Protein backbone atom coordinates (compact mmCIF):
# COMPACT_ATOMS: atom_id res chain seq x y z
CA UNK A 1 0.00 0.00 0.00
CA UNK A 2 2.69 2.39 1.11
CA UNK A 3 4.99 1.33 -1.75
CA UNK A 4 2.13 1.74 -4.13
CA UNK A 5 1.47 5.27 -2.98
CA UNK A 6 5.07 6.41 -3.35
CA UNK A 7 5.15 4.88 -6.80
CA UNK A 8 2.11 6.91 -7.77
CA UNK A 9 3.59 10.17 -6.52
CA UNK A 10 6.92 9.69 -8.22
CA UNK A 11 5.08 8.85 -11.41
CA UNK A 12 2.90 11.96 -11.20
CA UNK A 13 5.58 14.55 -10.41
CA UNK A 14 7.68 14.16 -13.55
CA UNK A 15 4.52 14.01 -15.60
CA UNK A 16 3.15 17.30 -14.29
CA UNK A 17 6.53 19.03 -14.51
CA UNK A 18 6.92 17.82 -18.07
CA UNK A 19 3.43 19.02 -18.82
CA UNK A 20 4.20 22.40 -17.35
CA UNK A 21 7.37 22.80 -19.39
CA UNK A 22 5.55 21.66 -22.49
CA UNK A 23 2.74 24.08 -21.85
CA UNK A 24 5.25 26.88 -21.26
CA UNK A 25 7.12 26.04 -24.45
CA UNK A 26 3.86 26.02 -26.37
CA UNK A 27 2.89 29.35 -24.88
CA UNK A 28 6.36 30.70 -25.62
CA UNK A 29 6.10 29.53 -29.22
CA UNK A 30 2.71 31.16 -29.65
CA UNK A 31 4.18 34.47 -28.48
CA UNK A 32 7.45 34.07 -30.37
CA UNK A 33 7.08 37.41 -32.19
CA UNK A 34 6.43 39.18 -28.91
CA UNK A 35 9.42 37.44 -27.30
CA UNK A 36 11.77 38.46 -30.10
CA UNK A 37 10.60 42.05 -29.72
CA UNK A 38 11.13 41.93 -25.96
CA UNK A 39 14.43 40.08 -26.07
CA UNK A 40 15.95 42.59 -28.49
CA UNK A 41 15.40 45.18 -25.77
CA UNK A 42 16.75 42.83 -23.11
CA UNK A 43 19.84 42.19 -25.23
CA UNK A 44 20.38 45.93 -25.65
CA UNK A 45 20.11 46.45 -21.88
CA UNK A 46 22.49 43.57 -21.30
CA UNK A 47 25.11 45.08 -23.61
CA UNK A 48 24.78 48.79 -22.89
CA UNK A 49 23.68 48.78 -19.23
CA UNK A 50 24.88 45.54 -17.66
CA UNK A 51 28.27 45.03 -19.34
CA UNK A 52 29.39 48.50 -18.14
CA UNK A 53 28.09 47.61 -14.65
CA UNK A 54 30.29 44.53 -14.75
CA UNK A 55 33.03 46.79 -16.12
CA UNK A 56 33.26 48.64 -12.81
CA UNK A 57 35.43 45.77 -11.54
CA UNK A 58 38.36 47.58 -13.16
CA UNK A 59 38.06 49.96 -10.18
CA UNK A 60 39.57 47.10 -8.13
CA UNK A 61 42.19 46.23 -10.76
CA UNK A 62 45.12 47.89 -12.44
CA UNK A 63 43.66 48.11 -15.90
CA UNK A 64 45.68 49.38 -18.80
CA UNK A 65 44.69 49.77 -22.40
CA UNK A 66 47.16 47.13 -23.66
CA UNK A 67 45.76 44.29 -21.53
CA UNK A 68 42.28 42.84 -21.29
CA UNK A 69 40.18 43.30 -18.17
CA UNK A 70 40.66 39.65 -17.18
CA UNK A 71 44.45 39.89 -17.36
CA UNK A 72 44.67 43.05 -15.27
CA UNK A 73 45.99 42.35 -11.74
CA UNK A 74 43.75 42.89 -8.70
CA UNK A 75 44.73 45.81 -6.50
CA UNK A 76 41.84 45.81 -4.01
CA UNK A 77 40.93 49.23 -2.71
CA UNK A 78 44.13 50.98 -3.78
CA UNK A 79 42.39 53.36 -6.18
CA UNK A 80 39.80 54.33 -3.57
CA UNK A 81 42.60 55.09 -1.08
CA UNK A 82 44.46 57.06 -3.74
CA UNK A 83 41.37 59.22 -4.28
CA UNK A 84 41.02 59.89 -0.55
CA UNK A 85 44.68 60.97 -0.43
CA UNK A 86 44.46 63.08 -3.58
CA UNK A 87 45.31 66.76 -3.16
CA UNK A 88 42.45 67.70 -5.45
CA UNK A 89 39.81 65.85 -3.39
CA UNK A 90 38.87 68.78 -1.08
CA UNK A 91 38.37 71.24 -3.92
CA UNK A 92 36.51 68.70 -6.07
CA UNK A 93 34.11 67.94 -3.21
CA UNK A 94 33.72 71.61 -2.32
CA UNK A 95 32.93 72.62 -5.90
CA UNK A 96 30.51 69.76 -6.49
CA UNK A 97 28.58 70.10 -3.24
CA UNK A 98 28.84 73.90 -3.13
CA UNK A 99 27.23 74.44 -6.50
CA UNK A 100 24.66 71.69 -5.98
CA UNK A 101 23.57 72.94 -2.58
CA UNK A 102 23.20 76.53 -3.78
CA UNK A 103 21.20 75.20 -6.72
CA UNK A 104 19.04 73.26 -4.29
CA UNK A 105 18.44 76.27 -2.03
CA UNK A 106 17.86 78.86 -4.79
CA UNK A 107 17.22 76.92 -7.97
CA UNK A 108 14.74 74.45 -6.50
CA UNK A 109 12.17 76.87 -4.99
CA UNK A 110 12.28 79.46 -7.82
CA UNK A 111 10.26 77.43 -10.35
CA UNK A 112 7.65 76.83 -7.64
CA UNK A 113 7.41 80.57 -6.97
CA UNK A 114 7.28 81.25 -10.71
CA UNK A 115 4.50 78.68 -11.15
CA UNK A 116 2.56 80.14 -8.21
CA UNK A 117 2.57 83.63 -9.75
CA UNK A 118 1.92 82.30 -13.25
CA UNK A 119 -1.08 80.48 -11.83
CA UNK A 120 -2.46 83.80 -10.55
CA UNK A 121 -2.53 85.43 -13.99
CA UNK A 122 -6.10 86.16 -15.00
CA UNK A 123 -5.65 86.21 -18.76
CA UNK A 124 -5.22 82.67 -20.07
CA UNK A 125 -3.75 83.91 -23.31
CA UNK A 126 -1.09 85.98 -21.53
CA UNK A 127 -0.31 83.05 -19.26
CA UNK A 128 0.21 80.77 -22.25
CA UNK A 129 2.40 83.37 -23.97
CA UNK A 130 4.63 83.74 -20.91
CA UNK A 131 4.91 79.96 -20.64
CA UNK A 132 5.87 79.59 -24.29
CA UNK A 133 8.63 82.17 -23.88
CA UNK A 134 9.87 80.70 -20.62
CA UNK A 135 10.29 77.16 -22.01
CA UNK A 136 12.38 78.32 -24.94
CA UNK A 137 15.84 78.38 -23.27
CA UNK A 138 15.42 74.74 -22.23
CA UNK A 139 15.71 73.82 -25.90
CA UNK A 140 18.96 75.65 -26.47
CA UNK A 141 22.09 73.57 -26.05
CA UNK A 142 24.71 74.41 -23.44
CA UNK A 143 27.17 75.03 -26.24
CA UNK A 144 24.95 77.81 -27.59
CA UNK A 145 24.39 79.20 -24.12
CA UNK A 146 28.15 78.99 -23.51
CA UNK A 147 28.64 81.02 -26.67
CA UNK A 148 26.17 83.62 -25.43
CA UNK A 149 27.81 83.75 -22.00
CA UNK A 150 31.37 84.10 -23.30
CA UNK A 151 30.14 86.95 -25.53
CA UNK A 152 28.29 88.69 -22.71
CA UNK A 153 30.98 88.24 -20.08
CA UNK A 154 33.96 89.20 -22.25
CA UNK A 155 36.06 92.29 -21.46
CA UNK A 156 34.23 94.19 -24.18
CA UNK A 157 30.94 92.39 -23.52
CA UNK A 158 27.61 93.93 -22.61
CA UNK A 159 27.90 93.18 -18.88
CA UNK A 160 31.14 95.11 -18.53
CA UNK A 161 29.81 97.95 -20.72
CA UNK A 162 26.69 98.33 -18.58
CA UNK A 163 28.54 98.14 -15.26
CA UNK A 164 31.16 100.63 -16.46
CA UNK A 165 28.46 103.00 -17.65
CA UNK A 166 26.73 102.75 -14.29
CA UNK A 167 30.04 103.41 -12.57
CA UNK A 168 29.86 100.20 -10.52
CA UNK A 169 33.27 99.02 -11.73
CA UNK A 170 36.33 101.00 -12.81
CA UNK A 171 37.86 98.51 -15.22
CA UNK A 172 36.40 95.60 -17.20
CA UNK A 173 36.47 92.22 -15.45
CA UNK A 174 37.13 88.92 -17.25
CA UNK A 175 34.41 87.05 -15.41
CA UNK A 176 35.16 83.60 -16.81
CA UNK A 177 38.86 83.96 -16.02
CA UNK A 178 38.25 84.60 -12.32
CA UNK A 179 37.34 81.62 -10.11
CA UNK A 180 35.35 83.75 -7.67
CA UNK A 181 32.59 84.39 -10.26
CA UNK A 182 32.33 80.86 -11.60
CA UNK A 183 29.67 79.47 -9.24
CA UNK A 184 27.40 82.48 -9.70
CA UNK A 185 27.67 82.20 -13.48
CA UNK A 186 26.82 78.49 -13.38
CA UNK A 187 23.87 78.92 -11.05
CA UNK A 188 22.42 82.00 -12.75
CA UNK A 189 22.68 80.51 -16.23
CA UNK A 190 21.13 77.27 -15.03
CA UNK A 191 18.17 79.16 -13.58
CA UNK A 192 17.84 81.21 -16.77
CA UNK A 193 17.73 78.04 -18.84
CA UNK A 194 15.45 75.85 -16.74
CA UNK A 195 13.11 78.14 -14.77
CA UNK A 196 10.15 77.87 -17.14
CA UNK A 197 10.66 74.23 -17.97
CA UNK A 198 10.83 73.14 -14.32
CA UNK A 199 7.62 75.07 -13.63
CA UNK A 200 5.54 72.93 -16.06
CA UNK A 201 5.08 70.08 -13.64
CA UNK A 202 3.99 72.37 -10.80
CA UNK A 203 1.54 74.19 -13.07
CA UNK A 204 0.01 70.88 -14.07
CA UNK A 205 -0.40 69.93 -10.42
CA UNK A 206 -1.99 73.34 -9.72
CA UNK A 207 -4.48 72.83 -12.54
CA UNK A 208 -5.89 69.95 -10.51
CA UNK A 209 -6.79 72.11 -7.49
CA UNK A 210 -10.57 72.42 -7.15
CA UNK A 211 -11.89 75.97 -7.88
CA UNK A 212 -14.38 75.57 -5.02
CA UNK A 213 -11.54 75.83 -2.52
CA UNK A 214 -10.61 79.22 -3.91
CA UNK A 215 -14.24 80.35 -3.95
CA UNK A 216 -14.73 79.29 -0.34
CA UNK A 217 -11.56 81.11 0.73
CA UNK A 218 -12.69 84.27 -1.10
CA UNK A 219 -15.87 84.27 0.96
CA UNK A 220 -13.72 83.89 4.06
CA UNK A 221 -11.82 87.00 2.97
CA UNK A 222 -8.51 85.42 1.97
CA UNK A 223 -6.16 87.56 -0.14
CA UNK A 224 -4.13 86.39 -3.10
CA UNK A 225 -1.01 85.64 -1.08
CA UNK A 226 -3.04 83.75 1.51
CA UNK A 227 -4.61 81.63 -1.23
CA UNK A 228 -1.22 80.86 -2.69
CA UNK A 229 0.19 79.95 0.72
CA UNK A 230 -2.76 78.06 2.26
CA UNK A 231 -4.40 76.44 -0.76
CA UNK A 232 -2.17 76.20 -3.83
CA UNK A 233 1.07 75.32 -2.10
CA UNK A 234 -0.31 72.53 0.14
CA UNK A 235 -2.15 71.07 -2.87
CA UNK A 236 1.10 70.50 -4.76
CA UNK A 237 3.02 69.20 -1.74
CA UNK A 238 3.26 65.69 -3.22
CA UNK A 239 4.78 66.91 -6.49
CA UNK A 240 7.25 69.12 -4.63
CA UNK A 241 8.30 66.20 -2.42
CA UNK A 242 8.99 63.84 -5.30
CA UNK A 243 11.02 66.42 -7.20
CA UNK A 244 12.89 67.27 -4.00
CA UNK A 245 13.87 63.63 -3.45
CA UNK A 246 15.23 63.49 -6.99
CA UNK A 247 17.07 66.79 -6.51
CA UNK A 248 18.70 65.63 -3.27
CA UNK A 249 19.82 62.34 -4.79
CA UNK A 250 21.39 64.34 -7.61
CA UNK A 251 23.60 66.63 -5.50
CA UNK A 252 26.73 64.80 -6.65
CA UNK A 253 25.70 65.24 -10.28
CA UNK A 254 26.94 68.46 -11.70
CA UNK A 255 25.60 69.65 -14.96
CA UNK A 256 28.47 68.18 -16.91
CA UNK A 257 27.50 69.68 -20.28
CA UNK A 258 27.29 73.11 -18.72
CA UNK A 259 30.50 73.05 -16.69
CA UNK A 260 32.60 71.61 -19.48
CA UNK A 261 31.56 74.51 -21.72
CA UNK A 262 32.27 77.20 -19.12
CA UNK A 263 35.41 75.88 -17.44
CA UNK A 264 38.92 76.82 -18.46
CA UNK A 265 42.39 76.66 -16.94
CA UNK A 266 42.01 80.02 -15.21
CA UNK A 267 38.82 79.17 -13.30
CA UNK A 268 39.80 75.55 -12.61
CA UNK A 269 39.97 75.98 -8.83
CA UNK A 270 36.23 76.75 -8.78
CA UNK A 271 35.07 74.61 -11.70
CA UNK A 272 36.60 71.19 -11.10
CA UNK A 273 33.68 68.94 -10.06
CA UNK A 274 33.50 65.14 -9.67
CA UNK A 275 32.11 64.50 -13.15
CA UNK A 276 34.78 66.64 -14.81
CA UNK A 277 37.45 65.04 -12.61
CA UNK A 278 36.37 61.55 -13.71
CA UNK A 279 36.35 62.63 -17.34
CA UNK A 280 39.76 64.30 -17.19
CA UNK A 281 41.65 61.73 -15.12
CA UNK A 282 39.98 58.85 -16.97
CA UNK A 283 39.76 59.76 -20.61
CA UNK A 284 42.22 62.62 -20.94
CA UNK A 285 45.01 61.15 -18.75
CA UNK A 286 44.21 57.46 -19.30
CA UNK A 287 43.90 56.51 -15.60
CA UNK A 288 40.93 54.25 -16.35
CA UNK A 289 40.86 52.24 -13.14
CA UNK A 290 41.28 55.26 -10.89
CA UNK A 291 38.56 57.27 -12.64
CA UNK A 292 36.20 54.28 -12.52
CA UNK A 293 36.77 54.01 -8.75
CA UNK A 294 35.89 57.70 -8.31
CA UNK A 295 32.78 57.27 -10.46
CA UNK A 296 31.76 54.20 -8.45
CA UNK A 297 32.06 56.08 -5.14
CA UNK A 298 29.80 58.74 -6.61
CA UNK A 299 27.17 56.27 -7.86
CA UNK A 300 26.99 54.52 -4.50
CA UNK A 301 26.68 57.75 -2.51
CA UNK A 302 23.96 58.95 -4.91
CA UNK A 303 22.01 55.71 -4.38
CA UNK A 304 22.31 56.04 -0.59
CA UNK A 305 21.21 59.70 -0.73
CA UNK A 306 18.16 58.70 -2.77
CA UNK A 307 17.15 56.09 -0.19
CA UNK A 308 17.71 58.51 2.72
CA UNK A 309 15.78 61.37 1.08
CA UNK A 310 12.98 58.97 0.23
CA UNK A 311 12.58 57.59 3.75
CA UNK A 312 12.93 61.00 5.43
CA UNK A 313 10.21 62.63 3.32
CA UNK A 314 8.04 59.56 3.78
CA UNK A 315 8.22 60.04 7.56
CA UNK A 316 7.73 63.81 7.43
CA UNK A 317 4.80 64.19 5.06
CA UNK A 318 3.80 60.76 3.83
CA UNK A 319 4.86 61.35 0.21
CA UNK A 320 7.61 59.26 -1.35
CA UNK A 321 9.00 58.03 -4.61
CA UNK A 322 8.74 54.32 -3.74
Amino acid at each position, binding site marked *: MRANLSYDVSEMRPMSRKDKILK*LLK*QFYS*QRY*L*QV*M*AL*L*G*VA*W*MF*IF*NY*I*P*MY*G*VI*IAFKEFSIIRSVAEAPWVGLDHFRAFLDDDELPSVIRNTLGMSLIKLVIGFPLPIVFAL*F*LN*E*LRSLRFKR*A*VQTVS*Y*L*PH*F*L*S*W*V*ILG*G*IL*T*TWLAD*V*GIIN*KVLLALGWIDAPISYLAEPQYFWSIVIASDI*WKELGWSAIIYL*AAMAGVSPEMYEASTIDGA*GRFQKMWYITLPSIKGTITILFILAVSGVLNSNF*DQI*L*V*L*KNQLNESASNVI*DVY*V*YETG*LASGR*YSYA*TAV*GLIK*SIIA*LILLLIANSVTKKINGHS*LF
Partner: protein
Amino acid sequence: MLTKRKTAGEALFDGFNILGMLAICFITLYPIWYVLVNSFNDGQDAMRGGIYWWPRAFSMDNYVEVFKNPGIMTAMGVTVAKTLVGTAAHVFFTAMVAYAFSQRELIGRNIYLLMGTFTLFFSGGLIPFYLLIRDLGMLDNFMVYIIPFLFSFFDLIIFMSFFREIPGALKEAAKIDGANDFSIFTRVIIPVSMPVIATISLFHGVWQWNDYFVGMIYINNMDLQPIQTFLFRVVAQSSSSQIVAAAGGGVDRTVTSQSIKLATMVVTTAPIVFAYPFLQKYFVKGLMIGSVKG
Protein backbone atom coordinates in the same frame (compact mmCIF):
# COMPACT_ATOMS: atom_id res chain seq x y z
CA MET B 1 -16.39 99.80 1.02
CA LEU B 2 -14.68 96.59 1.94
CA THR B 3 -15.15 95.09 -1.54
CA LYS B 4 -13.78 98.22 -3.15
CA ARG B 5 -10.59 98.19 -1.09
CA LYS B 6 -10.10 94.55 -1.89
CA THR B 7 -10.40 95.17 -5.62
CA ALA B 8 -7.78 97.91 -5.38
CA GLY B 9 -5.43 95.47 -3.67
CA GLU B 10 -6.22 92.82 -6.21
CA ALA B 11 -5.59 95.21 -9.07
CA LEU B 12 -2.23 96.14 -7.57
CA PHE B 13 -1.32 92.48 -7.24
CA ASP B 14 -2.33 91.79 -10.84
CA GLY B 15 -0.43 94.82 -12.10
CA PHE B 16 2.79 93.83 -10.39
CA ASN B 17 2.37 90.22 -11.43
CA ILE B 18 2.02 91.20 -15.10
CA LEU B 19 5.03 93.52 -14.85
CA GLY B 20 7.11 90.78 -13.25
CA MET B 21 6.14 88.30 -15.97
CA LEU B 22 7.02 90.80 -18.69
CA ALA B 23 10.39 91.30 -17.02
CA ILE B 24 11.00 87.53 -17.04
CA CYS B 25 10.06 87.35 -20.72
CA PHE B 26 12.49 90.18 -21.48
CA ILE B 27 15.34 88.54 -19.56
CA THR B 28 14.62 85.29 -21.39
CA LEU B 29 14.42 86.71 -24.91
CA TYR B 30 16.94 89.54 -24.86
CA PRO B 31 20.16 87.42 -24.82
CA ILE B 32 18.85 85.55 -27.86
CA TRP B 33 17.91 88.79 -29.59
CA TYR B 34 21.37 90.21 -28.84
CA VAL B 35 23.06 87.30 -30.62
CA LEU B 36 20.67 87.66 -33.55
CA VAL B 37 21.25 91.39 -34.16
CA ASN B 38 25.00 91.06 -33.75
CA SER B 39 25.10 88.18 -36.21
CA PHE B 40 23.44 90.41 -38.83
CA ASN B 41 25.96 93.19 -38.28
CA ASP B 42 29.22 93.78 -40.09
CA GLY B 43 31.88 91.82 -38.17
CA GLN B 44 34.56 94.54 -37.98
CA ASP B 45 32.00 97.14 -36.97
CA ALA B 46 30.55 94.86 -34.28
CA MET B 47 33.94 94.69 -32.55
CA ARG B 48 33.38 98.28 -31.37
CA GLY B 49 30.43 96.95 -29.38
CA GLY B 50 27.31 98.90 -28.56
CA ILE B 51 24.90 96.94 -30.76
CA TYR B 52 22.00 96.29 -28.43
CA TRP B 53 18.67 96.60 -30.22
CA TRP B 54 19.23 96.64 -33.97
CA PRO B 55 22.14 96.01 -36.39
CA ARG B 56 24.22 99.16 -36.88
CA ALA B 57 25.80 98.14 -40.18
CA PHE B 58 23.49 95.49 -41.56
CA SER B 59 25.31 92.68 -43.33
CA MET B 60 24.60 89.16 -44.50
CA ASP B 61 28.31 88.39 -44.93
CA ASN B 62 28.56 86.33 -41.76
CA TYR B 63 25.89 83.99 -43.03
CA VAL B 64 27.45 83.85 -46.48
CA GLU B 65 30.71 82.77 -44.83
CA VAL B 66 28.92 80.16 -42.70
CA PHE B 67 27.24 78.60 -45.70
CA LYS B 68 30.48 78.71 -47.70
CA ASN B 69 32.51 77.07 -44.91
CA PRO B 70 32.92 73.35 -45.76
CA GLY B 71 33.72 72.44 -42.12
CA ILE B 72 30.51 73.97 -40.81
CA MET B 73 28.42 72.48 -43.61
CA THR B 74 29.81 68.97 -43.06
CA ALA B 75 29.14 69.25 -39.33
CA MET B 76 25.60 70.45 -40.06
CA GLY B 77 25.08 67.46 -42.30
CA VAL B 78 26.25 65.09 -39.56
CA THR B 79 23.86 66.72 -37.10
CA VAL B 80 20.89 66.47 -39.46
CA ALA B 81 21.71 62.84 -40.29
CA LYS B 82 22.18 61.71 -36.70
CA THR B 83 19.06 63.54 -35.55
CA LEU B 84 16.85 62.00 -38.25
CA VAL B 85 18.27 58.48 -38.15
CA GLY B 86 18.86 58.44 -34.39
CA THR B 87 15.39 59.68 -33.53
CA ALA B 88 13.56 57.35 -35.92
CA ALA B 89 15.56 54.35 -34.71
CA HIS B 90 15.21 55.24 -31.02
CA VAL B 91 11.47 55.77 -31.20
CA PHE B 92 10.79 52.64 -33.23
CA PHE B 93 13.01 50.38 -31.14
CA THR B 94 11.93 51.70 -27.74
CA ALA B 95 8.24 51.61 -28.72
CA MET B 96 8.59 48.06 -30.01
CA VAL B 97 10.16 46.82 -26.78
CA ALA B 98 7.62 48.81 -24.75
CA TYR B 99 4.76 47.17 -26.64
CA ALA B 100 6.14 43.72 -25.94
CA PHE B 101 6.77 44.58 -22.26
CA SER B 102 3.23 45.92 -21.91
CA GLN B 103 1.63 42.56 -22.83
CA ARG B 104 0.60 40.78 -19.64
CA GLU B 105 0.94 37.31 -21.15
CA LEU B 106 4.63 37.90 -21.99
CA ILE B 107 6.65 35.13 -20.32
CA GLY B 108 9.46 36.62 -18.22
CA ARG B 109 7.81 40.05 -18.16
CA ASN B 110 8.53 40.71 -14.49
CA ILE B 111 12.18 39.79 -14.83
CA TYR B 112 12.56 42.02 -17.90
CA LEU B 113 10.90 44.94 -16.11
CA LEU B 114 13.01 44.48 -12.99
CA MET B 115 16.12 44.37 -15.13
CA GLY B 116 15.13 47.68 -16.69
CA THR B 117 14.12 49.37 -13.44
CA PHE B 118 17.51 48.63 -11.92
CA THR B 119 19.21 50.57 -14.74
CA LEU B 120 17.37 53.71 -13.59
CA PHE B 121 19.17 53.63 -10.26
CA PHE B 122 22.63 52.39 -11.03
CA SER B 123 25.00 52.63 -13.96
CA GLY B 124 28.56 51.66 -14.67
CA GLY B 125 29.63 55.22 -15.30
CA LEU B 126 31.59 56.95 -18.01
CA ILE B 127 34.79 54.90 -18.18
CA PRO B 128 33.34 51.38 -18.47
CA PHE B 129 30.90 52.73 -21.07
CA TYR B 130 33.76 54.25 -23.04
CA LEU B 131 35.69 50.98 -22.95
CA LEU B 132 32.60 49.11 -24.16
CA ILE B 133 32.16 51.50 -27.10
CA ARG B 134 35.83 51.05 -27.94
CA ASP B 135 35.59 47.26 -27.78
CA LEU B 136 32.52 47.32 -30.01
CA GLY B 137 34.58 49.19 -32.61
CA MET B 138 32.31 52.20 -32.54
CA LEU B 139 35.00 54.86 -32.04
CA ASP B 140 35.08 57.15 -35.05
CA ASN B 141 32.02 55.44 -36.43
CA PHE B 142 28.72 57.13 -37.26
CA MET B 143 26.87 54.27 -35.52
CA VAL B 144 28.05 55.58 -32.13
CA TYR B 145 25.35 58.25 -32.45
CA ILE B 146 22.65 55.66 -33.06
CA ILE B 147 23.12 52.23 -31.48
CA PRO B 148 24.11 53.15 -27.89
CA PHE B 149 21.06 55.44 -27.78
CA LEU B 150 18.52 53.14 -29.44
CA PHE B 151 16.78 52.44 -26.19
CA SER B 152 15.82 54.24 -22.99
CA PHE B 153 13.99 52.58 -20.13
CA PHE B 154 12.60 55.93 -19.04
CA ASP B 155 11.00 56.45 -22.47
CA LEU B 156 9.78 52.86 -22.35
CA ILE B 157 7.80 53.69 -19.19
CA ILE B 158 6.15 56.62 -21.00
CA PHE B 159 5.29 54.41 -23.99
CA MET B 160 3.90 51.66 -21.76
CA SER B 161 1.59 53.99 -19.90
CA PHE B 162 0.22 55.16 -23.26
CA PHE B 163 -0.17 51.63 -24.66
CA ARG B 164 -2.15 50.60 -21.59
CA GLU B 165 -4.91 53.01 -22.61
CA ILE B 166 -5.35 51.48 -26.09
CA PRO B 167 -8.53 49.35 -26.18
CA GLY B 168 -7.74 45.63 -26.30
CA ALA B 169 -10.42 45.09 -28.94
CA LEU B 170 -8.18 46.69 -31.58
CA LYS B 171 -5.52 44.10 -31.01
CA GLU B 172 -7.98 41.19 -30.79
CA ALA B 173 -9.57 42.13 -34.12
CA ALA B 174 -6.18 42.10 -35.84
CA LYS B 175 -5.34 38.78 -34.19
CA ILE B 176 -8.49 37.17 -35.54
CA ASP B 177 -7.47 38.39 -39.00
CA GLY B 178 -4.28 36.35 -38.53
CA ALA B 179 -1.82 39.16 -37.85
CA ASN B 180 1.26 38.36 -35.77
CA ASP B 181 2.35 40.52 -32.83
CA PHE B 182 4.94 42.41 -34.85
CA SER B 183 2.51 43.42 -37.56
CA ILE B 184 -0.07 44.30 -34.90
CA PHE B 185 2.55 46.65 -33.49
CA THR B 186 3.46 48.24 -36.83
CA ARG B 187 -0.03 48.36 -38.38
CA VAL B 188 -2.36 48.84 -35.42
CA ILE B 189 -0.43 50.22 -32.45
CA ILE B 190 1.85 52.75 -34.17
CA PRO B 191 -0.95 54.54 -36.08
CA VAL B 192 -2.99 55.11 -32.91
CA SER B 193 0.04 56.16 -30.82
CA MET B 194 1.04 59.28 -32.73
CA PRO B 195 0.77 61.66 -29.74
CA VAL B 196 3.26 59.71 -27.62
CA ILE B 197 5.48 59.05 -30.64
CA ALA B 198 5.56 62.80 -31.35
CA THR B 199 6.47 63.51 -27.72
CA ILE B 200 9.34 61.05 -27.50
CA SER B 201 10.56 62.05 -30.97
CA LEU B 202 10.67 65.64 -29.83
CA PHE B 203 12.63 64.89 -26.64
CA HIS B 204 15.08 62.56 -28.31
CA GLY B 205 15.38 64.74 -31.40
CA VAL B 206 16.24 67.80 -29.34
CA TRP B 207 18.79 65.78 -27.40
CA GLN B 208 20.37 64.45 -30.60
CA TRP B 209 20.44 67.91 -32.12
CA ASN B 210 21.97 69.55 -29.03
CA ASP B 211 24.41 66.93 -27.79
CA TYR B 212 28.11 67.67 -28.19
CA PHE B 213 29.52 65.14 -25.73
CA VAL B 214 29.25 61.99 -27.86
CA GLY B 215 30.90 63.75 -30.78
CA MET B 216 33.60 65.02 -28.47
CA ILE B 217 34.71 61.80 -26.76
CA TYR B 218 34.01 59.05 -29.28
CA ILE B 219 34.85 60.87 -32.52
CA ASN B 220 38.24 62.13 -33.66
CA ASN B 221 37.53 62.34 -37.37
CA MET B 222 36.52 65.96 -38.02
CA ASP B 223 34.27 64.91 -40.89
CA LEU B 224 32.12 62.97 -38.43
CA GLN B 225 31.73 65.65 -35.76
CA PRO B 226 28.30 67.26 -35.35
CA ILE B 227 27.81 71.02 -35.37
CA GLN B 228 27.49 71.23 -31.57
CA THR B 229 30.89 69.59 -31.10
CA PHE B 230 32.32 71.91 -33.73
CA LEU B 231 30.89 74.89 -31.82
CA PHE B 232 32.07 73.47 -28.50
CA ARG B 233 35.63 73.42 -29.79
CA VAL B 234 35.23 77.01 -30.92
CA VAL B 235 33.46 78.30 -27.79
CA ALA B 236 35.04 76.40 -24.91
CA GLN B 237 38.47 75.64 -26.22
CA SER B 238 38.67 78.96 -28.06
CA SER B 239 40.18 77.09 -30.97
CA SER B 240 38.72 79.39 -33.56
CA SER B 241 41.32 78.18 -36.06
CA GLN B 242 38.71 76.28 -38.05
CA ILE B 243 36.60 79.39 -38.40
CA VAL B 244 39.50 81.81 -38.88
CA ALA B 245 40.96 79.63 -41.60
CA ALA B 246 37.72 79.87 -43.48
CA ALA B 247 37.31 83.59 -42.89
CA GLY B 248 40.90 84.47 -43.77
CA GLY B 249 40.70 82.69 -47.08
CA GLY B 250 38.08 85.01 -48.53
CA VAL B 251 38.64 88.43 -50.06
CA ASP B 252 35.97 89.80 -47.76
CA ARG B 253 37.69 90.99 -44.60
CA THR B 254 34.68 92.43 -42.83
CA VAL B 255 33.83 89.18 -41.05
CA THR B 256 35.58 88.17 -37.82
CA SER B 257 35.79 84.81 -36.08
CA GLN B 258 33.40 86.22 -33.46
CA SER B 259 30.80 87.32 -36.01
CA ILE B 260 30.95 83.98 -37.82
CA LYS B 261 30.61 82.22 -34.47
CA LEU B 262 27.42 84.15 -33.73
CA ALA B 263 26.00 83.40 -37.19
CA THR B 264 26.81 79.70 -36.74
CA MET B 265 25.04 79.75 -33.38
CA VAL B 266 21.95 81.24 -35.01
CA VAL B 267 21.97 78.73 -37.88
CA THR B 268 22.38 75.88 -35.35
CA THR B 269 19.53 77.06 -33.17
CA ALA B 270 17.07 78.24 -35.81
CA PRO B 271 15.51 74.84 -36.64
CA ILE B 272 14.69 74.21 -32.97
CA VAL B 273 13.27 77.68 -32.41
CA PHE B 274 11.09 77.47 -35.52
CA ALA B 275 9.81 73.97 -34.83
CA TYR B 276 9.17 74.52 -31.18
CA PRO B 277 5.89 76.48 -31.03
CA PHE B 278 4.25 73.78 -33.15
CA LEU B 279 5.52 71.00 -30.93
CA GLN B 280 4.69 72.68 -27.65
CA LYS B 281 1.45 70.80 -27.01
CA TYR B 282 3.28 67.50 -27.35
CA PHE B 283 6.02 68.09 -24.83
CA VAL B 284 3.68 69.44 -22.21
CA LYS B 285 1.51 66.35 -22.61
CA GLY B 286 4.52 64.05 -22.66
CA LEU B 287 5.91 65.53 -19.48
CA MET B 288 2.54 64.88 -17.85
CA ILE B 289 2.50 61.20 -18.82
CA GLY B 290 6.06 60.85 -17.57
CA SER B 291 5.36 62.61 -14.31
CA VAL B 292 2.24 60.61 -13.50
CA LYS B 293 4.37 57.48 -13.62
CA GLY B 294 6.96 59.17 -11.45
